[in-house]
Structure formats: structure tokens, C-alpha cells
């Protein structure tokens, strides 16, 4: 049907449109998938041109007989070749103004928050770097302190490379591992539990490394020996 409409849009008359539909129907019958090899396509074009009556010199669909340019034959796309989208009508609103206003407000809120924090809080700026004077404890940035905490328990290769490496790969592969099609929390208790455990474990490690490790990276309570944490 689409083929017929397209042919008509090309300015062809009704008879040609019918011819195009016929050709499309033939193609559909032969190849249900709608995919044609270039040879099949060429054969179908020839067939279509012949069906117009004539020697293939078809001015009928807008291609001069001697022309090599056949791209206007797009009108012959079989219905099966057109991507079918089956989806329910969703409840939708216009991006402007509804979404863009929400985004603008959240952007302002974060911007103001950042500005206020930056105005009142100065991050630590210590003395000039000195390679000969190692502070005790030496800590990585906070988001790596979970890894540094692991160093207390495992060999550096395991703690610093194997665990984060395997962790990142499993995390990235989540979409391929998880075959459960449902997104409802009730149907995916295991996935949610596993991810929550990952988050909790990581948070606990980062907190332990950040707030409960003092000189020599030994365990200290912040209310006894103070904090050894710097952002």
C-alpha cells in the first residue's frame, strides 16, 4: 500500500500505481522477510517495467529508458520491507515547556548548591609536595579508598586489579547476564539484592577506608584519635 502511495506521490497515474502494488505483492509472496539480494531486486525492477507493457523503456515510473539511474524505484519497496512498529499510544507531553522547565529548575538548584558550598567551604590545600616526606597515613582520593581498604585484606594484585577489573566487567555485562525481561521489582528480587549488596559493600569499604583508618592504615575510631580524611 505504501508503495502505491509513494508511486502516486511521484506524480504517476492510477494505472502505474496499480502496477507498482502488483510488483510489491509479488515480492512479498516470494520473500516474506522483505529482504532481497541485489540480483533479486534487479530482477523485480525488470519485471515491474515489463508489466507496464513495453520493452522496459518505462517512462511510466519516471525513469527514462536509457537511464542508468533507478533510484526513483524506491516506490517499489514491498510492505514487508518496511519496519513495523507495534507500540501502544503512550501518555506524552511536550518537551517544551514541560520537560525543559523541570530540567532548568534542577540545573539552577544544583548550580546554586554548588555555588553556596564553594563560597563557604575551602578544600584542603597543603604545603608544597615533598617526595622525601611521606605523610602517615597516605590515602588515595575517597572514591578509591574502598580499593585501598581491600589492600588490607588481599594481595595488591587481587585488591587493586583483579577485584575492580572483574567487578567492572561484571557490571558492564549486567545487561547481557540478566535474561529476566521484567523490570518490576517483585520479579527481580535476586538482581536487586545482588546490586544492593554491591552498593552496600562498596559504601562500607569506602567509609571504612575514609573514616576508620589512621596512621599505618590501622583501624582507629574517629571519636578517639580524630579523622584522617581529606577531600
Amino acid at each position, binding site marked *: 500500500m505504501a508503495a502505491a502511495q509513494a508511486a502516486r506521490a511521484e506524480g504517476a497515474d492510477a494505472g502505474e500505481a496499480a502496477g507498482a502494488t502488483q510488483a510489491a505483492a509479488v515480492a512479498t509472496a516470494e520473500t516474506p522477510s522483505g529482504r532481497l539480494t541485489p540480483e533479486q531486486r534487479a530482477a523485480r525492477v525488470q519485471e515491474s517495467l515489463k508489466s507496464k507493457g513495453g520493452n522496459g523503456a518505462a517512462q511510466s515510473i519516471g525513469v527514462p529508458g536509457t537511464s542508468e539511474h533507478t533510484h526513483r524505484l524506491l516506490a517499489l519497496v514491498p510492505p514487508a520491507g518496511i519496519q513495523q512498529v507495534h507500540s501502544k499510544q503512550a501518555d506524552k*507531553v511536550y518537551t517544551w515547556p514541560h*520537560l525543559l522547565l523541570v530540567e532548568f529548575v534542577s540545573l539552577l538548584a*544544583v548550580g546554586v548548591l*554548588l555555588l553556596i558550598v564553594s563560597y563557604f567551604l575551602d578544600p584542603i590545600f*597543603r604545603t608544597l609536595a615533598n617526595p622525601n616526606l611521606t605523610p602517615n597515613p597516605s590515602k588515595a582520593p575517597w572514591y578509591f579508598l574502598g580499593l585501598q581498604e581491600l589492600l588490607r585484606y588481599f594481595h595488591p594484585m587481587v585488591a587493586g586489579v583483579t577485584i575492580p577489573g572483574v567487578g567492572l566487567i561484571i557490571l558492564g555485562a549486567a*545487561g547481557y547476564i540478566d535474561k529476566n525481561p521484567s*523490570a518490576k521489582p517483585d520479579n527481580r528480587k535476586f538482581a536487586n539484592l545482588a546490586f544492593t549488596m554491591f552498593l552496600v559493600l562498596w559504601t562500607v569499604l569506602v567509609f571504612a577506608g575514609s573514616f576508620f583508618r589512621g596512621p599505618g592504615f590501622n583501624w582507629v575510631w574517629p571519636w578517639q584519635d580524630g579523622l584522617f580524611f581529606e*577531600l
Partner: protein
Amino acid sequence: MDDAKKRVQDNVIWKSIFRPGSIYRKGYRDTSRDRALAAMNNVLYHLHPVKVKRHGLKLTYTYCLGGISFFLFVVLTITGIFLMFFYRPTAGANTELAYLDMRNIIAGVTFGNLVRNMHRWGAHLMVFTVFLHMARVFYHGAYKPPREFNWVVGVILLTLTLLLSFTGYLLPWDQLAIWAVTVGTEMMGFTPVFGKQVQFVLLGGVEVGPETLLRFYVMHVLLLPFVLVVFLAVHFWRIRKDGGISGPL
């Protein structure tokens, strides 16, 4: 007034900037058509469709975390460019320009301290929001097909965010900076087979020194942001191609 407006809008230059149908070209009226055109006739159309699912507006569903992460990245780019005007990544005996420039930014440059603080706190906040964004996407099952590849891109972006923050950590060249980076790169050096080589290339030597500062600076201001922007583009594009934001549970 109308006459002046017409003169501004009715010339070759204005028309070359705003495409036919643009609301800036013909004036905005609050109709469905113009609401659609506001997104459609705009570079914005690459990010947002004309219409979005209504649940996408619910703050309790999206928390805007991806958008906030991107906004913070923009803020970090702008404040970072500002800081680059006053910073030289040079260290070494008697040429501790990096440290001196930091002191100058904090004490001498107009708004220097504020911008530096925004850059630093913004970086921490971005690591945090990217992490939360990941959690939100997971709990809504939005990493499932057809979005599984975009989730992979997201994990790459998380890694890049951490690396960007980490490379920036060294630049102040104070005691905190070099020792934190020493600890971090030590861990990296334990990678089997090529760990030591990678560490050597990153540090420009066997330990953190002036060469490390230059390498981390280039990675921080050029290499990693470039890679991140490329992946961001793919990330955003895939959101549109994979059917927009995920549906309600």
C-alpha cells in the same frame, strides 16, 4: 518596537542563523505546533524528542541524575578553562610553578578561589551523581535490552569520570596531591603482564615527579575530556535510538 524587531529578524544574517520554521524566525505563539517546533527546529532535537513520556517528568522517577551529571561536566569544563588561564603544570627543583600558580589562584585571582572551589567540589559531586545515576538505572531495570549496550557505554563513562577526577587530583602539587596519586598509581602498577609498563608511561618515570604532573595535566585537560565527550555523544544518541527514557515499573 515591532518595527525594530522586524528589522532584526528580516535580514539575511538572522535568517541564516535560524532555520525556516524556527520560533526565533517567525515568533513564538503558544500552540501545539510551536511547542513542537521549539524542540524540533533546534540543536536540542538531538537530545530530546518533541514529546516525552509523562512519567519522565516525575522527579521521583528520574531524579534528573543523568542530566545533573552532564550539567556538572559542563560546569567543570567552564571552570576548568578559567583555571587554565592561571595555571602552569610545572614542578621540579626551584620551579614549582604549579604550586605557586595554585596559591595565586586562591589568593590573587579575582574569583579564583570561588572558581577553584567550584571545580573541586563539582568534581566530587559529579563522581557521586554518576554513581547514583547508575544505581537509579539499575533499580529501574533500564539496562536491559535494548539498552544493554548503552549501559556498557555508561560503565565506560563512570570509569572515565573516576580517571578524570583522579588525574585532576595531582594538579595542585601539594602534599595531599602527590601522595594520593602515589598510592593510586602504586595499585595500578600491580596489573599483571603490562602493569609496570603502563605505570611507567603514566608517571613518566618510576615515581611521581615533574613529568607525571605534565602527563596528568594533558590527560586531565585534553585526552580524557575528549574521550569522554565522544562516549557522551554515543550515550545520548543511544538513549534516543533505544526508545527514549525507560518506562514505569
